[in-house]
């Protein structure tokens, strides 16, 4: 596991492709929390949805930054297509908390540095826990979508980009049924300072969708 994580970190650090989604993440965090008096649930609901799209972009960018020949040699080293999918799953599990961290950490840091009205009323530990869940689960779902349309399943980058965007629109279209919008709705409606049942259900919904997307990726890999 550590060896695979190190390989992914090395690949990510040695390509330029992740720079754009990472830069957008930074600007999005600064832009969102530039103004004081944010409403806790609504703001973190919105950044949770954003996290889904950013995770899709970042995972797709990292996978696209790995040349095909390098990916093939690594795939053979990890035992073939199943090992490759596990590697990609690990990448998603690394990216989702990485993206959640600034969205949660930056406002808390500002608060700790004395800017007391980042959130009005201030965020409670239960709010932070709920937001962490929503961001990570939305990130996992977004990352899974990127994996579905990554090589060797989709080799043309333009096609992959279009397919990921279309999938994110479909997820948004699911609204409050399941997916990132449902998670955002749940965190917005949750009572202050708690992680309630609807948040957990929404997060589980995101994870179930992510698992289904990974299943589809595994089936698709068999046909490549």
């Amino acid at each position, binding site marked *: 596991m*550590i*060896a*695979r994580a*190190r*390989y992914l970190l*090395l*690949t990510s650090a*040695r*390509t*330029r492709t992740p720079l754009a989604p990472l830069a957008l993440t930074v600007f999005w965090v600064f832009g969102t929390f530039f103004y004081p008096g944010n409403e806790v649930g609504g703001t973190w609901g919105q950044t949770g949805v954003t996290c889904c799209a950013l995770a899709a972009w970042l995972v797709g960018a990292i996978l696209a*930054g*790995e*040349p*095909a*020949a*390098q990916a*093939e*040699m*690594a*795939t*053979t*080293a*990890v*035992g*073939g*297509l199943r090992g490759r999918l596990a590697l990609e799953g690990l990448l998603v599990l690394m990216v989702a908390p990485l993206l959640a961290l600034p969205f949660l950490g930056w406002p808390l840091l500002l608060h700790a540095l004395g800017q007391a009205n980042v959130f009005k009323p201030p965020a409670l530990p239960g709010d932070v826990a709920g937001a962490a869940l929503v961001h990570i689960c939305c990130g996992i779902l977004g990352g899974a979508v990127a994996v579905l349309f990554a090589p*060797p399943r989709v080799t043309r980058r333009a096609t992959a980009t279009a397919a990921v965007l279309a999938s994110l629109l479909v997820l948004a279209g699911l609204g409050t049924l399941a997916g990132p919008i449902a998670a955002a709705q749940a965190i917005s409606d949750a009572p202050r300072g708690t992680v309630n049942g609807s948040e957990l259900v929404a997060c589980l919904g995101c994870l179930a969708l992510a698992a289904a997307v990974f299943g589809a990726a595994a089936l698709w*890999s*068999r*046909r*490549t």
Partner: protein
Amino acid sequence: MAIVEARTLTVARGRRIVLRDVDLTVRGGDIVHLAGANGSGKTSLLRVLAGLARPRGGELRREGGAAFVPERVQLAPALRPLEWLGAMRRLRGLDAVDWLAAATASGLDPAKLERPAASLSKGMLQRVALLEALHAKPALLLLDEPFSGLDAVGREWLATQLAQGRAALLTDHSGTVAPTGRLRLRDGRCEPASVLAVLTVHATRDGERLERAVREDESDALLRELLGAGWHVERVER
């Protein structure tokens, strides 16, 4: 013991079936040469055997790990080969290797392992990938045109390594290595072909010496070419 055993394998490239009813067995120490025209399915078959693609039909059984080196090796431009070699070693769950010493032993300039991959030539990257694959000591080596980008020193090094009893399946148009088995891919079929000997031609011209390995069936053409260019052919060894 068979390291790879395929029975009635169907291989596709995208939606197109490129090979049908492929039967092959590779045992320890076998060096099997895949021959065939461009587009005959050599790379597709190697990819299936490497686990990079699934066969569309038939049975495939592989014992132990494999290492695959594609024809055109590419690494992320800013990635240093030394970093990649270490990462691949860890991915395989193997102990660390002194890559600088290993590179020196193989005739590679170790300083080049610390340069970004973008600054290295095709042949250098191929040498790096082959170094990694050979040091992993997998049960099976799958090499796509491994000699095509190598210089004379590199070709000799690889031929020596392959002669050390490793099981390998390779495509090769250079005839540098003497295979123990040969498969010809033609018209979507894979048939065993006779193993041709590799001859070494020694020639001189104005104090310059030349030593070239050539397949038996291509030796006449080479000899004619050399004699036409004013070389004196000293001897031909089998």
